[in-house]
C-alpha cells in the first residue's frame, strides 16, 4: 500500500476516541450509563486492570466505591475475578483495552467466562484505529478472536447513543458479552429518542437499490456520509448497521443481500474474521449470490500516528466506502 500523505498529525494519540469527523459528542457515555443501571441494579459491580480513567469506569468507581475492584495490570486475573463474581450472582463489568482482553486473556475469556456462560461483561477500549499508539494498542483482530468463542455475545456499537443503550441491554442479558468501548468524548450519531438498540438485531438505516453497505461500529457514522456522497453521484445505496457481530442477524442480512447483491462491508477491524467474514459465511451458507467488497484494515500491524492520518492511510473514511461502492457499480 502506498503512502499518499505525509504524517502531519500528532502521534501517540492514546486519549482520543473517534471524535474524528464528529459534529456532536457526549462525555463518557459508558461510565454514565453504567451508573444509571447500577442505581437500580445492586448486583452490578465494576472492575478494571489499571485503566479506570481510560475506560470511563472511574465514574462508577467514584459513585460506588464498595462495588468496584481495582485488579491492577493483570488481565488474566481481571477476567477470572469477574467470572468468580458472576458465579456468586453479581453482574461484573470488567474494563481494559481490546488488545489486552483478547490477546492476553483469551483462554480466560473462553474457559473462565464463556464455557459455563458466566455472566461476565467485558468492556474493551481502543477498538481498531481509535488510538494513535501502534500495534501494541490497536485492537485490530479482537472481533475475529471473540466471534470464535462459543456462548459469547459480541457487540461493536456505533456511537454514544448505542453504547449507552447497549450497557443497559447487556446488564439485563444473562451470559458473557464482549462490548467494544468508545470513551471520552464520543460522537452522537443516532437520536436517542428514535434509535433503539437490541442485542442481535441489525438496523436498516437507509433503503437503496444499487448497492448495499453493511457496516458495524464507528464505521457506520462514515457509511452514513458515504450514502449521502453516493446519492450526490446518483447512486441509491442501502445501509444496514450490524452492531451485534454475534449472534449475527443472518435473516436481516440475507433479506438485504437478496434484494441488493452488490455489497460493501465497512468495519473498524481486519477485513477477515469480523463483519465481512460474517456476511460471507451467512450468504454462502444460504446460497445467496453476493458481490462483496470489504473496507477495513488489511492483515497487518498498523502504524502509529494521528487518527486522521491513520484513517487515510488504511482507507477507512467515508470516501473510501463510497469509492468501493462506485467501483463495484461501474465495473
Amino acid at each position, binding site marked *: 500500500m502506498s503512502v499518499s500523505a505525509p504524517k502531519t498529525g500528532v502521534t501517540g494519540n492514546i486519549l482520543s476516541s473517534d471524535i474524528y469527523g464528529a459534529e456532536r459528542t457526549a462525555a463518557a457515555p459508558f461510565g454514565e450509563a453504567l451508573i444509571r443501571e447500577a442505581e437500580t441494579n445492586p448486583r452490578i459491580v465494576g472492575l478494571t486492570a489499571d485503566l479506570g480513567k481510560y475506560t470511563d469506569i472511574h465514574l462508577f468507581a467514584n459513585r460506588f466505591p464498595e462495588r468496584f475492584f481495582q485488579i491492577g495490570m*493483570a488481565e488474566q*486475573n481481571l477476567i477470572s*475475578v469477574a467470572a*468468580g*463474581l458472576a458465579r456468586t450472582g453479581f453482574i461484573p463489568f470488567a474494563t481494559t483495552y481490546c488488545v489486552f482482553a483478547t490477546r492476553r486473556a483469551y*483462554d*480466560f475469556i473462553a474457559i*473462565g467466562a464463556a464455557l459455563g456462560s458466566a455472566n461476565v461483561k467485558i468492556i474493551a477500549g481502543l477498538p481498531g484505529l481509535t488510538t494513535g499508539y501502534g500495534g501494541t494498542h490497536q485492537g485490530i483482530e479482537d472481533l475475529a478472536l471473540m466471534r470464535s468463542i462459543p456462548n459469547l455475545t459480541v457487540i461493536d456499537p456505533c456511537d454514544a447513543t448505542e453504547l449507552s443503550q447497549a450497557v443497559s441491554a447487556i446488564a439485563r442479558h444473562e451470559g458473557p458479552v464482549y462490548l467494544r468501548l468508545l470513551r471520552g468524548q464520543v460522537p452522537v450519531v443516532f437520536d436517542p429518542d428514535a434509535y433503539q438498540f437490541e442485542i442481535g438485531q441489525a438496523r436498516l438505516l437507509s433503503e437503496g437499490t444499487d448497492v448495499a453497505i453493511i457496516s458495524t461500529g464507528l464505521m457506520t457514522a462514515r457509511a452514513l456520509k458515504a450514502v449521502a456522497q453516493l446519492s450526490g453521484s446518483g447512486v441509491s445505496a442501502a445501509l444496514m448497521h450490524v452492531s451485534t457481530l454475534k449472534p449475527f442477524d443472518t435473516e436481516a442480512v440475507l433479506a438485504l443481500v437478496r434484494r441488493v447483491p452488490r455489497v460493501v462491508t465497512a468495519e473498524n477491524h481486519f477485513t477477515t474474521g469480523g463483519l465481512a467474514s460474517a456476511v460471507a459465511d451467512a450468504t454462502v451458507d444460504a446460497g445467496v449470490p453476493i458481490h462483496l467488497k470489504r473496507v477495513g484494515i488489511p492483515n497487518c500491524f498498523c502504524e502509529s500516528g494521528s487518527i486522521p492520518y491513520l484513517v487515510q492511510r488504511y482507507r477507512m473514511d467515508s470516501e473510501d466506502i463510497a469509492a468501493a461502492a462506485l467501483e463495484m457499480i461501474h465495473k
Partner: protein
Amino acid sequence: MSGGTDVSTTATSITSLQLHALSLRRHVLRMAERVGQGYVGQGLGIADLLTVLYFREMKYDPHNLAWPDRDRFLLSIGHYSIGLYAALAEAGVITVDELDTYGADQSRLEMAGSEVTPGFEMTGGSLGHGLGQAVGMALGVRLDGRSSRIFNLLSDGELQEGSTWEAAMSAAHYRLDHLFAFIDCNDQQADGPPRQVLTIEPVHSKWEAFGWDTQRINGNDIHAIVNAIDAARKITGKPHAIVLDTLMGKGVRTFEERDKNHFIRVEPDEWRLAREQLEENAQLKTKRNA
C-alpha cells in the same frame, strides 16, 4: 464461622475421617479400573485433603448445591477430578454407581472435570484459572455479607502459570482471610519433577512473600491437615496457603513406587493387586492406631 469448628479432633473423629479417606481411595480405584487408566496417582494422593474438607471443614448441602451460603471448593487442576468425584460420591452429591461412567462417552464424569458435573463450581484443567475465580467468589460472598469460605486446590506445577501469582497478589491486597489455597506438591508434572522442568521452590517463602498466611505440612496426614486448617482459621486479614507434600498413588504401593505416575495405565490383572494393597495398607494403619 466454620461448619467444622464444633467437631473436635479426637482420636475417634480422626479415625472416622480415615475411614472416609479409605472409601475415597476405593472409589478412585473403582473408577480407573473401569477404563483401565486415569489420574489415579493424583486421586489417591489428594484423598486425605478432600476427606478433611468434605467430611469435617466445609458447610454445604449435598441436596441443595446452589445454597448461597455454602462454602465453595474450586478444583483448578481438572485432571484431579477423579479424586473429587470420589469425594462427591462419598458425600452423596452424586451416586456411587455413577462413578462407573468415569471417562466414558456421554458421561458427566469427564477425565478432566468441568462444571457440567454437579458439585463442580468452575471448569479447571486449563491450569491457572482456579485461584483467580476463587478471589472473585471470595469478593462476591463478602460483598453479600455471607460467612461462606472459598477453598481452592492447586498443584505444584500450576505455580508455573503466571496467572496464579496475579491472583495471589490480589487475594492479599483484598485481605481475603476466608480464602484457603491448598497447593498439592506431589513433585510430578507432565514432563517430570518440577525441579527438572522448572524450579518452583521455595514454595513456602513465595506464598509468604505474596502476603499469605502460609504453612507446609504432610498432605497425607489427616491429623496434620486438620490442625493446619484450625490454625489458619485463627489468622485474620490474610488469605491462607497450606502447602501439602503428598505422595502420588498414596495407599497403593505399586502406584507409589511407579516412576511415571502422572497418568497411569494399568493392565487388567494389576487392578486386583492394587485393591489388595490398598486394603492391606488400611489394615496396617488400623492396627497402628489401635
